[in-house]
C-alpha cells in the first residue's frame, strides 16, 4: 500500500544542524521516518510526512529540533475555536480515535 501523505509545505518542523550531535534519537522516535543521519548529523528527508507529533523535539537531548505540535484533529480545533483557546479535545479516551 502506498504511504499516505497530507498537505504540502505546511509543516513547522525545524532542525538546527549546529546543535545536532548525531545521537540518532530523532530517527528512533519519529513514526514517519522524517529524519535520516548523514555524515553524523540528522537531516530532514521527508518533511511533508511529518505529523507534528513533537516526539523528536521532546527527545532531542541537544534541543536541536523545534516543531509546533498539538492535536491535529478537527474536533479539537473546533473546540479551540469555540472556546478561543489552543486546539484541545476533551475526549474521554475510549478507543484509539479520540485524537
Amino acid at each position, binding site marked *: *500500500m502506498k504511504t499516505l501523505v*497530507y*498537505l504540502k509545505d505546511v509543516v513547522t518542523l525545524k532542525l538546527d544542524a549546529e546543535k545536532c550531535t548525531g545521537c540518532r534519537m530523532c530517527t528512533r522516535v519519529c*513514526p514517519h521516518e522524517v529524519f535520516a543521519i548523514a555524515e553524523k548529523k540528522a537531516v530532514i528527508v521527508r518533511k511533508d*510526512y511529518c505529523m507534528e507529533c513533537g516526539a523528536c523535539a521532546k*527527545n532531542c537531548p541537544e534541543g536541536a529540533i523545534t516543531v509546533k*505540535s498539538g492535536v491535529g*484533529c*478537527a474536533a479539537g480545533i473546533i473546540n479551540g475555536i469555540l472556546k478561543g483557546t489552543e486546539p484541545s479535545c476533551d475526549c474521554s*479516551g475510549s478507543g484509539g480515535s479520540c485524537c
Partner: protein
Amino acid sequence: MNSKYIIGSVPTVFGEIPRVDTKWNSSDIRNTMRVRWNVGRMRYTVDPGLYAVGNPDAESMVFVSANFKLSFDHLRKALHSLNAWILVLDTKGINVWCAAGKGTFGTTELISRIKICALLNIVNHRKLILPQLGAVGVSAHEVKSKTGFQVIYGPVRAEDIPAFVASGFKATPEMRRMNFPMWERIKLIPVEITYGKYYLILVPALFFILAGLGPFGYAVDDAWHNGGRSVILLFASYFAGCVLTPALLPWVPFRRFALKGLVLGWIVTSTFLAFDLLGPHILEKIAWYLMTGAISSFLAMNFTGASTYTSLSGVQKEMKTALPLQIAAAAAGLAAWIVARFL
C-alpha cells in the same frame, strides 16, 4: 471493573506484586468490542502501578503502559511466555497515543510512578521499555537524569514486542513506522459512526416533519414519501463521510480530507440521481448535492482526528477554508430544499 485478569502474585522486596494473565478471557473480549463501539463512552481502566507477567525477578525487563485497559491488554498479550514487569502509568484511562499528546503519559508521571512503585528496589538494572508513541509525552534524557533509568523506545505496535525482544531490543524501521492500514482504519469506523449522537435522530425527524410542507398546506402522505427518501439520503451521506472515507482513504483523490469526503458524498448522491431519487424538481436536486456534500465532507474532515499522519498545521489550514464552505453549503441546501417543497 472486575479483575479476572489477575492470577496470583509475585513476591518482591517491596511486597506482593499482582500477576496478570497473558490470555484474554471472555469478558476482556466482550469489553473490547464495547469500547470499539463506544458504548456509553465507558471508562475502561486498570489501576496504575506495577504488575508481573510470568515469574519476573530483579533482572527482568520493565515495560511501561497506559492505564487504558485496551493498551494494557494488548501489552500483556504480547508478553506471553516472557517474564517481565509492567509499569502502568496513570493516564486517566486514555490510550498511549492520546495520553502522550496531552502529557498524561509523560515525563512527570513516569518519574513519580517509578518512585511510588519503588522500581529502584525491585529491579537491579536501569532500563525501561516504552511504546514508541509515548515519546510524544516523555523526554528520555530527562527521565534518565532524574531517575537513572534509560528509556528504550520499543515498537509502535505491541504485537511486535516478541520480535523486538528476540532481536535484543532493536526495533526495525518497519516496527517504528506508524502505518495506517485498512484494518486500523476500519477499527475506527464504529466510533466515527457514533459521532453524530442524538443528531442522528433529531435531523431525520426534522426532515420528516418538514417534508409534509407543500403548496397546499401540510400533507401527511408527502411527509412519509419525501421524508423517507430524505432520511435515506441523509444517512447515505453520513455513511459516505464516516464509513466510506476511512475505508477507502488512500484510493480517494485529493489530500484534503474535506475533498475526499466531498468526492465520496457526491458519488453516493449521484447514484441516487441515477435512480431518480433526488426529487422531481431541479432545485431539490441541487439542494441535495449541497447538503450531502457538506455532511460527508464535514465528517470526513473529522476523521483527521483519528488518522495517524495529519499535522496540526495542515488540519488548521484545511479547516479554515472548508468549515465556512460546509456550513454555507448546508444552510443554502436546506433553504433550497424547503423552497422546493412549494414548487
